């Protein structure tokens, strides 16, 4: 079908290849280099991986990472579900309002958001000052520069990411299905629980997968709001590299992080079934 002439294929290659080539040389090869570092610095061997398997400190970091990510996923998907649900049944103006308050933080730099939470949550911050003025607490609550602070910042960061897949699954639900349920005698709650919720489960799964996998690699938000006391895997890579100058261990930790992301992506994929994202039409 295609109109071809001599040498067309070479011209296509000229168009196509620069981009993959630059990614290959500038990104993939260096990644192999990092893998090499993890086995060769400061001396050849698997000592860093043995260390990761044995060290209680690193286990604490890994468990903390998984714990924070799991909590972040649960809380942000729950909040996002509520937002998406109200969006689904909102009028034009209501939808615009919801889109605005979801997208404004979404497009704002994570540094700016971390800054805002530091201002709000620190000891002499707005929340603690208000609580103390109202006499609810005597001492400022430790809201930031700990695990709680990291969690709050991460949830705030992830809610918009969870909203988007939920919106797309909810807008596929035909109004007539819900009408049918209610005209067959299902109450509001039954309609929600037996009709609406099951239809949105693929969206919930997609949102959870997005948030969990994304959270695993989070660095900036937990580093700033956790204040070093809630170091997650990504932050510990940075600490090993630039505070302890242990390049080998830093490299090994980043490889472990990459594997964890890959494994959770595959697990989520299997759990949900890729077909449910694409194949199903309601």
């Amino acid at each position, binding site marked *: 079908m*295609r*109109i071809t002439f001599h040498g*067309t*294929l070479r*011209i*296509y*290659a000229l*168009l*196509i290849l*620069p*981009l*993959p080539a630059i*990614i290959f040389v*500038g*990104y*993939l090869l*260096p990644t192999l*280099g*990092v893998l090499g*570092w993890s086995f060769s610095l400061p001396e050849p061997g698997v000592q860093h991986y043995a260390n990761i398997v044995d060290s209680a400190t690193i286990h604490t970091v890994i468990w903390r990472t998984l714990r924070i990510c799991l909590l972040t996923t649960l809380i942000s998907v729950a*909040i996002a579900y*509520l*937002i998406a649900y*109200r969006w689904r049944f909102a009028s034009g103006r209501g939808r*615009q*309002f919801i*889109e605005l*308050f979801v*997208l*404004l933080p979404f497009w*704002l*730099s*994570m*540094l*700016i958001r971390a*800054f*805002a939470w*530091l*201002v*709000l949550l620190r000891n002499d911050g*707005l929340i603690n000052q208000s609580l103390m003025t109202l006499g609810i607490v005597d001492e400022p609550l430790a809201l930031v520069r700990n695990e709680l602070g990291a969690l709050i910042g991460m949830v*705030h960061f992830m809610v918009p990411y969870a909203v*988007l897949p939920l*919106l797309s699954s909810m*807008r596929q639900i035909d*109004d*007539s299905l819900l*009408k049918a349920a209610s005209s067959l005698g299902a109450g*509001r709650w039954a309609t929600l629980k037996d009709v609406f919720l099951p239809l949105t489960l693929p969206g919930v799964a997609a949102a959870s997968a997005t948030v969990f996998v994304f959270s695993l*690699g989070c*660095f*900036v938000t937990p580093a700033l709001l956790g204040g070093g006391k809630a170091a997650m895997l990504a932050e510990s*890579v*940075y600490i090993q*590299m630039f505070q302890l100058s242990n390049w080998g261990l830093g*490299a090994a930790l*980043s490889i472990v*992080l*990459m594997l964890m*992301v890959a494994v959770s992506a595959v697990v989520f994929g299997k759990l949900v079934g890729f077909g449910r994202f694409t194949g199903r039409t309601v």
Partner: protein
Amino acid sequence: MSTAPTVTKIASQNPASAKYVPRLDLAKLISYLGMLLAAFFLLLPILVIVPLSFGDQRFLAFPEGTWSLRHYAELLNSAWLSSILQSLGLAVAVGIVSTALAFMFATGIWLEPRYRTVLTTVVLLPMIVPQVVSAMSLYYLGAKLQLLDTLVGVGFGHLMMALPYSLIAMLVAYSRLDINLYKASRSLGAGLWMTIRQVLMPNVRVGMAGSFFMAFIMSWEEVVVTLFTSGLNVVTLPKRIWDGLRYNLDPAIAAVSTLMIFITLIILLVRIYRHKTNVDSPGH
């Protein structure tokens, strides 16, 4: 960007079916309340920054009585200004290179989709891999080529992070283009380059703008790769903010944040308003 098609599609869906509106009751009231709380949670931290930026103290504080622009004046001080200019320059350069590469690739793959899946996956990798891992790779590259803490080295890192987003914008643009356009142009005697320049480019120019915009934003906001690959010479705006957040809360951050909030807000309002008009017009 990603919500653009969403909003348009929703309104045009199921025009025939009757609208289902849950009756007002306690449960609905609670869900409204929950949504307002969520809105409060999402917006509160952003709204708090704005008054802080007009504080009249040397340190970060709410303005008491008099509002002042001293923190904005601080932005014109050489260190902040040079960071802003450095970030702007990097973002524009990354945007141009990234758009050019993405345009070439998307055009080629649209004309010859044989290895589309595998090649596209390779290019999208920096978007999927955790940023810290990408930062390690780019640190390795910078160390090997002695490009750490240079504009070229940091810019190259930004480019790697920006390319996937740039490419997605281009691929979306091409997915809406009919291949017959190309065939018609060629059968009328236009050469490949002429077709690309005079037929394809004008048709994907919105995608090119989106591609540039995405790359610009990715570079402008890039933190993690910059932290790994820069030092004392290259201090982009996000790097300066990061330093200011780590050691003390520099009030100039409130001023620069407020500016960013207003710019983002204006762009969003325009986009949301434009969607509404798009939705209303038939045939979109």
